[in-house]
């Protein structure tokens, strides 16, 4: 059905993922202010993409499956985004200081 990736590919991906995990851990020990969380999340996104595209083999899936996979993340961002429409703008109100 799909072409079968080699063991070598899988092991390489695994090595990168493990490396990234410990990179996250060590970077977190350095104080970068707001950037700590940004970098941690960027790494997490990168790791997630590797798992999705290689381990879950999304790259070989049909465009439809890709659409659904992307849709999930889009929808979650939509959920978060609209929470923030409220929480961020509470600050703009007189006397508001929720954020």
């Amino acid at each position: 059905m799909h072409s079968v990736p080699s063991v070598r590919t899988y092991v390489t991906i695994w090595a990168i993922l493990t490396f990234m995990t410990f990179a996250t851990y060590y970077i977190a020990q350095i104080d970068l202010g707001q950037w700590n969380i940004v970098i941690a999340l960027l790494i997490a996104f990168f790791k997630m993409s590797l798992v999705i595209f290689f381990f879950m083999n999304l790259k070989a899936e049909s465009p439809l499956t890709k659409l659904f996979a992307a849709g999930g993340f889009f929808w979650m961002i939509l959920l978060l985004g609209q929470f923030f429409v409220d929480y961020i703008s509470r600050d703009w109100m007189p006397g508001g200081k929720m954020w």
Partner: protein
Amino acid sequence: MSTALQDPRVVETPNYLNQEYGWRSWLFTKDHKRIAVLYIISITVMFFIGGIFASLIRVELLTPQGDLVNSDTYNKFFTMHGIVMVFFFLIPSIPATLGNFFVPMMIGAKDLAFPRINLLSWYIYIGGAAFALAAIVLGGVDTGWTFYTPFSSTYSNTFVITAAVGVFIAGFSSILTGLNFIVTVHKMRAPGMTWGRLPLFVWANYATSLIQVLGTPVVAITLALVGLERAFHIGIFDPAIGGDPILFQHMFWFYSHPAVYIMILPGMGVISELVTCFSRKGIFGYSFIAGSSLGIAIIGFLVWGHHMFVTGMSMYASLYFSLLTMLVAVPSAIKVFNWTATMFRGSISFDTPMLYAFGFIGLFTIGGLTGLFLGTLGVDVHVTDTYFVVAHFHYVMVGGMVLAYLGGMHYWWPKMTGRLYPEGWAKFSALLVFAGFNLTFFPQFILGYLGQPRRYHAYSPEFQVLNVMSTAGASVLGLGYIIPLIYFLWSMKYGPKAGNNPWRATGLEWQTSSPPPTYNFETTPIVTEEAYAYHDQKETHVG
């Protein structure tokens, strides 16, 4: 009655009903049609349970003093009415019954993509319903169907966890149905059944499925968090430790607003089928109706904040949600206009399903437009949490969804059972439902603007006349529901044989025998034309 009794011979052709007998053959069936029947029975039971609570509410509200039951009991009545009706009747109503039965048939498939998951979803539904009923039997829940924190999480002394577990479980039934439909529509269409040829009922169910899949998990986790908060005596919505109860409302309405589209979209799909069949005419603006279903499904997720304008949400967020609420009304309007236009120069018959369709178009228009009152900031402040809201959503849910469900049941009953229902009684009860409904709920708009808050056990005496009207209407409405139950049951044994296509409708479901055989079609159908090709029926054209 149009073309009854074409074939009065009493010959039982093999079909899904007589294929096998015995309770095992039903409880372990993988046939989508039998599962649909199981669902029909279950949701009918739930509907009447919810209906009993509704009647008790209305009887209590005959007098302003609150003298029939005490306030605690009354609170449980409206809570159980809401929970049962919303989560156990409205949400599964059309998708799990008519959708389950006809979506595979309409796309020319033998069954849904995952028949076993389909059966599983019914068992999950029953499991959820068991918890909900247990909550009723044990002593009830009094949080309102919205489970607002911190009342639900800290203050209520009733069986909130039991009910929340019930809703949580039933949610997965809904998710699995949606998942099944999505995959079925993508993967199981008959040759030639392109997306542009799908019947609009299928489009509507597809859009509904997207909402079910995307929204339901969020309400599931939200109610789980409430349940955990009760169980552990601490949680994330507790204001005592800095929790924000308004966040609960955000999370709850993220699902529960789109959920009203789960309830109404399949109803709109039914109406598209009815209007075309009984006007004997292709739909006006096919792609706009199909597209508006998807539009509603997507924009429906962007408007939940209009439930929260007075809660202390940021007023800029109110502005945002109000604007988008106006946007979601557009696809609904498109549908109403297109249905009306479909009737133009049609050949319109007044069979019972069409009467329900007329009722739907009118009442949904009122329900939809009054929804805009609630999306308009200045007015919503006054009418939110009053009977205006109650009236509005009953216009959409009962006047819209229930009428569509009844219309669809009448339309497809001959296909499902092979029998015709008594047309005279059916027309009579359709009129009863329409009249009773308006008498019940129209006064509530007036009550709402007058300021009667919802969920009031006792009310101010000056509101009594309108409440009495409402209760009177409710009894008519109740009668209108009981009559069809009786004649449907009667017709299964005594109704005249329907023939395969009593309405002379297009659509693959009418191409097979009634009741359909287990795998729906003798041979896989090949589709060569668009949906609703009534003009291709080889008959004389009339100007």
